């Protein structure tokens, strides 16, 4: 298990335990974190599990691949350090990661 924190756009923090080997998105859904819709169920086919990383974590986690980029591109709140949380796999390396949720998922 790895400790991860989701921060809602109003600043509300949700610190949860995430299962290693599973997508980060699952940790939000399993723990009822509001603001992650995950409409497609984690297959990179929508963009409703959008999270924003800080520069440091983005550097460690890495950029989206081309398929993820296609889904992220039209998202209005997309930033240079945006990712889809269904495409980030939880591991010990992510211990303590803090991700920001956009105000809206689209």
């Amino acid at each position: 298990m790895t400790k991860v924190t989701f921060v809602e756009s109003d600043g509300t923090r949700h610190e949860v335990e995430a299962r290693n080997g599973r997508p980060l998105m699952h940790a939000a859904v399993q723990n009822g974190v509001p603001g992650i819709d995950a409409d497609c169920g984690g297959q990179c086919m929508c963009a409703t599990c959008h999270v924003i990383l800080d520069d440091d974590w983005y550097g460690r986690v890495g950029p989206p691949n081309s398929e993820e980029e296609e889904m992220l591109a039209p998202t209005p709140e997309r930033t240079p350090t945006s990712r889809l949380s269904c495409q980030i796999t939880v591991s010990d390396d992510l211990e303590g990661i803090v991700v920001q949720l956009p105000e809206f998922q689209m």
Partner: protein
Amino acid sequence: MLDAVSRPRMVDADPWSIPLEQIDVSQADLYEHDLHWPYFERLRKEDPVHYCADSDFGAYWSVTKFNDIAQVDRQHKIFSSEPTVTISEPQEEIPFQSFIQMDPPKHDAQRAAVQPVVAPANLSKLEPIIRQRAGAILDALPEGETFDWVDTVSIELTTQMLATLFDFPFQERRKLTYWSDIATGGPELAGSNLVTEEERTAGLMECMQAFTDLWHERVNGTPGNDLISMLAHSERTRDMINEPMEFLGNLILLIVGGNDTTRNSITGGVLALNQFPAEYDKLRANPDLIPNMVSEIIRWQTPVSSMSRRVKEDTELRGRKIRKGDKVVMWYVSGNRDDEVIEDPMAFRIDRDHARHHLSFGFGLHRCMGNRLAEMQLRIVWEEITKRFHTVEVTGAPIRNRSNMIRGYRELPVRLRRL
């Protein structure tokens, strides 16, 4: 093309005994009579990727299972949206084009230009006016007498919304409804019987003229927050006016996208709650279920029953060999009833788990752009209905659309019981 004399009609056949190869779910009267369900149930079980060699629209593949549909939708390099996303061939009379029928990179640029108007941040600003207009429509409804919910509420509300989004002359707003209807109607397009091809052509030309006038008015003015201003002033789309068929196509896409779908979901919700009265009880007891119910309505209704793709390279789906040039129809209406993904899928359950996991918006690059607007409109309508009425009671059978693409209603008689 419409000479179908020799082909078996599905509405008259027995869906469980007709030879598989004769099944043709493109026949629009199947949807008009709500008789498509057993055909899809059988296809999902016995032949989930089904080939129909001969139909009013030529040969086509049907994809009927939830996850297969999602895979076709996401693989846009193999399953192309060009030159069209309908089961029929591109229209020659008025060959209009829009980003729904484009692949990257052109698709991406045009979509990006109009997406901001339906972005949730922008929608929050629209919420008060939508709520006020919805309330005014509901307050004016007759009590104790039967009236048509489709025209009086569903069409009126979505049309007012659309007029607001386009900043279209408010008194002439029903023209938007008409243009939307004829754009998806016409016998050649989806097997519909709404208008003749001549009426359709004339109507679409009128639509283009009206919007060309509005464009010229807005391009020289201060940019407003409406869709026409956005198109006229965006660097990516401001030359669109010089490509009349592209201009018309994108307008039609936005009109149809903002009209039919939400309209039919507003009506579908009333019908669903009447067919499942225990769910109506749940709603009365707990209006906080409305956001979840909205997703369930959108799944249950599936207002866009299908979208089609053209195959760019030989491929395989569930072991079936699909060749370059073939036509593949994704039947969202079937995938949303796939019991391998959705529990008890024929049931309407307003407190369903994972209600957002449905196919009605499609997936991938072409996923519905207006999904949040649609959800917001439905949420507001139901919040305002539950404040005012104990029951919107359905008093007779609906009259359904004759179309294999737009799944909806032309009439639904109802009577109101106030709180």
